[in-house]
């Protein structure tokens, strides 16, 4: 213990003056005071940690269990990669969805395309809030080529989207009211405007035209993403994707600028009717493929009725490989919880805590020292476990058929993967701190271990059986939110995805999730410090 250091050397300093005329001076120990700085406390706690074999074994068990369970989780996930249909060959095209109905003409150089979207209706059986109809300027008709699109969506108002990942919100659309849209190309910029009456225009956004050739294709498009149905009943889940289609009605269509028809061609006027080409871009996806190509265009006077299906946007990977290879932490945390609890309750059980508090009477500081030592040890062990799990798990996943292009390769050098791995170390350190706090608060080993483990494990186990809303709430506010730091699935607001927390799709950002856990640990530790001061040891 720290109190043992430096007490034995009795030097007679300060005793020379003796007792003067003032009578009995209060007794003072002649021993020099022992150093009781924070450093000594840290050293004392570290000595305790490293000298108890059972604790080191617990830490080792945590690492081994984490790695083994990760390996089982990664190795047991076979992936049939035989279905090479559907992909259109290039890797870029596989990572994005790019299929829609396109009515287009060439647009050379600067110019603009304008139309009034009078109606957007969904086909039978279609439930697609992100069904869209609007204007698009695209490099060509091959899927995956750059584009800028301005659209009216079924439930999300006017949107300006480009580069497959970017989405700028415009104004809301009231009911079935027609919306005027205009997309203007001017040099390197493409600007989208919206209007309710075709006279007063409001800018939605202006984006760079990078990647678009001087002569691009411009025109009208309609797309409707697949209808995704999630069916959950206790412990079982089925996700079904249904075909979908939407129909958009456009009038007052005008393409101005360097088109094929000259500097100014009013398509609505009926001049050069053959100039508009109607085409289905991209492969029909999902069940729709079996029913033949969806969509078509009817033209009556200046009114275009375009029916289409598909989507233009990012296609998130089918699984979170990083999450899958770090899953062992869900079981390994039990050992970290046990260590954290024991780090304080063992002292109460053996009466050691009285020695500890005699040596370091400031109890809050003792708790802090314990926390620092424990967190550092748990972080080191957790980080080691995470790195090994990740490397071994990625190898097992690749062997199990998780290969590009469906599953892009992940390496430890990638930002999100590195964050997840380091975050797993932090997560396990916070679990240990949370456990330390509960142990100090309850002073009852069994109850504290149970109370630490259950809040983490229960949402993960019961997740499949509870309603989606309840699960999301649990993963938002309970300590299990910390697992969010392992999630690397990108979120795109403009794509409806099936987001299940138990599969690593967390309702909040990675650091927010870890922050929630940190708040839990801090609150419990603060309560523990308060109780430590008020109650006899």
């Amino acid at each position, binding site marked *: 213990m720290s109190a043992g250091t430096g007490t034995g050397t009795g030097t007679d300093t300060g005793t020379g003056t003796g007792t003067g005329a003032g009578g009995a001076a209060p007794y003072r120990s002649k021993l020099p005071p022992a150093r009781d700085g924070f450093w000594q406390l840290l050293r004392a706690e570290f000595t305790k940690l490293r000298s108890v074999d059972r604790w080191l074994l617990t830490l080792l068990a945590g690492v081994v269990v984490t790695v083994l369970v990760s390996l089982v989780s990664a190795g*047991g996930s076979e992936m049939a990669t035989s279905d090479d249909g559907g992909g259109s060959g290039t890797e870029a095209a596989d990572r994005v969805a790019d299929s829609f109905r396109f009515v287009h003409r060439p647009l050379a150089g600067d110019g603009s395309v304008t139309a009034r979207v009078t109606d957007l209706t969904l086909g039978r059986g279609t439930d697609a809030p992100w069904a869209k109809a609007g204007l698009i300027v695209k490099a060509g008709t091959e899927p995956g080529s750059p584009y800028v699109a301005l659209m009216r969506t079924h439930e999300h108002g006017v949107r300006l989207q480009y580069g497959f990942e970017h989405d700028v919100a415009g104004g809301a659309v009231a009911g079935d009211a027609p919306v005027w849209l205009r997309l203007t190309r001017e040099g390197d910029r493409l600007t989208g405007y919206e209007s309710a009456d075709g006279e007063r225009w409001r800018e939605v956004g202006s984006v760079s035209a990078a990647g678009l050739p001087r002569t691009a294709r411009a025109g009208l498009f309609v797309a409707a993403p697949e209808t995704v149905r999630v069916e959950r009943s206790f412990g079982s889940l089925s996700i079904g994707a249904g075909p979908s289609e939407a129909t958009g009605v456009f009038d007052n269509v005008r393409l101005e600028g360097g088109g094929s028809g000259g500097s100014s061609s009013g398509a609505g006027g009926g001049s050069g009717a053959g100039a508009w080409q109607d085409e289905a871009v991209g492969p029909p996806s999902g069940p729709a493929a079996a029913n033949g190509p969806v969509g078509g265009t009817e033209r009556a006077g200046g009114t275009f009725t375009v029916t289409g299906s598909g989507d233009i946007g990012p296609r998130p990977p089918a699984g979170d490989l990083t999450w899958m290879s770090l899953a062992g932490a869900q*079981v390994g945390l039990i050992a970290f919880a*046990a260590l954290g*609890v024991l780090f304080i309750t063992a002292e109460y059980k053996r009466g050691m805590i009285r020695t500890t508090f005699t040596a370091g009477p400031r109890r809050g500081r003792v708790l802090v020292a314990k926390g620092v030592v424990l967190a550092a040890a748990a972080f080191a062990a957790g980080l080691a476990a995470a790195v090994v799990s990740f490397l071994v798990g990625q190898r097992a996943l690749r062997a199990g058929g998780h290969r590009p292009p469906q599953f892009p390769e992940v390496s430890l050098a990638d930002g999100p993967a590195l964050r997840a791995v380091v975050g797993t170390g932090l997560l396990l350190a916070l679990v240990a701190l949370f456990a330390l706090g509960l142990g100090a608060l309850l002073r009852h080993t069994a*109850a504290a*271990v149970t109370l630490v483990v259950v809040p983490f*494990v229960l949402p*993960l186990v019961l997740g499949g059986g509870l309603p*989606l809303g*309840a699960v999301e709430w649990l993963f938002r506010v309970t300590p299990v939110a910390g697992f969010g730091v392992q999630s690397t699935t990108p979120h795109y607001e403009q794509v409806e995805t099936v987001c299940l927390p138990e599969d690593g799709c967390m309702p909040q950002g990675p650091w927010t999730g870890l922050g929630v856990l940190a708040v839990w640990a801090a609150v419990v530790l603060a309560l523990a410090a308060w109780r430590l001061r008020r109650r006899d040891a």
Partner: protein
Amino acid sequence: MRDGRRGLREPVEPVESVGTAEEPEQAGAGEPRGRGGQRVREVRYAAGGRSVRAGLRDAGYAARAEWTKLRTVPSTWWLLLAVAAVTAAIGAGAVSGLSTAHCPPAGCREDVVKTSLAGVWAGQAAVAALASLAFTAEYGTGTIRTTLTAVPGRLRVLAAKSAVVGAAVLVAGGAGVLGALLAGRALVPAGFTAYDLGAGPVLRAGFGTALYLVLVALLALGLGAALRDTAGAVAACLGVLYASPLVAGMLSDPEWVERLQRYGPSSAGLAVQSTVDTAALPIGPWAGLGVLAAWSAAALALGAAVLRRRDA
């Protein structure tokens, strides 16, 4: 006691001299007496050849001692309360959270009974803590040496603890299950059919769940006897209980998932809760409980082996 094969002598007539110390070698030869001449219950242990009645009587004493130890520790009552309250409360919460939003178009086939019993997933953790403590607390404080001095038959200690802890868990777990079923029936949301408490599958689910908790207690008891350390035993027990559903949730290979659900102690044991589509389960309701019983038996055997072979 009658045959005295192992050289035990037949009890002779009680010696009437009070207060004189008999020769210590003669212990067991005569009816021992306490101070003041009261008869002291003689409990004799021999490897073989005792009458059934004496054996039962001894078992009764051992069980009573264990019950005294169990009921005089405050944490027992807190943990038993937690078992009942958590089982009922989480079950009620799960049922009231049911919604028809994600049901297939054909209608909901939700197993409402199973949902209202979902609280066992949490209640079993309290059972694990309680039952682990039965041995580990004694090892922690050294009481185990007193216990084994009083009842030197170590297997008898194990049996007595199992009986007492099992009975306590049966009562508390039964209360929790009953509460969960009653609350679940009262809280069934619109779109789901309420169940009849007397129906066969519901009774099976209810009794099966209470039995499940008892088997979990035995599992934890065995691990506690084997590991002798509270944190270790509780952590190991929670790991055994929760690892299989957690790992099953991570795997995507359906064959492995089914294997885990069939042989994992908690996943298999809780198959008994199913009342809908029991034919489609990876393992039948009672067979699943049998799998858990095998796990518990293995843990108890491990605990018994350690108890017999290792110094306390």
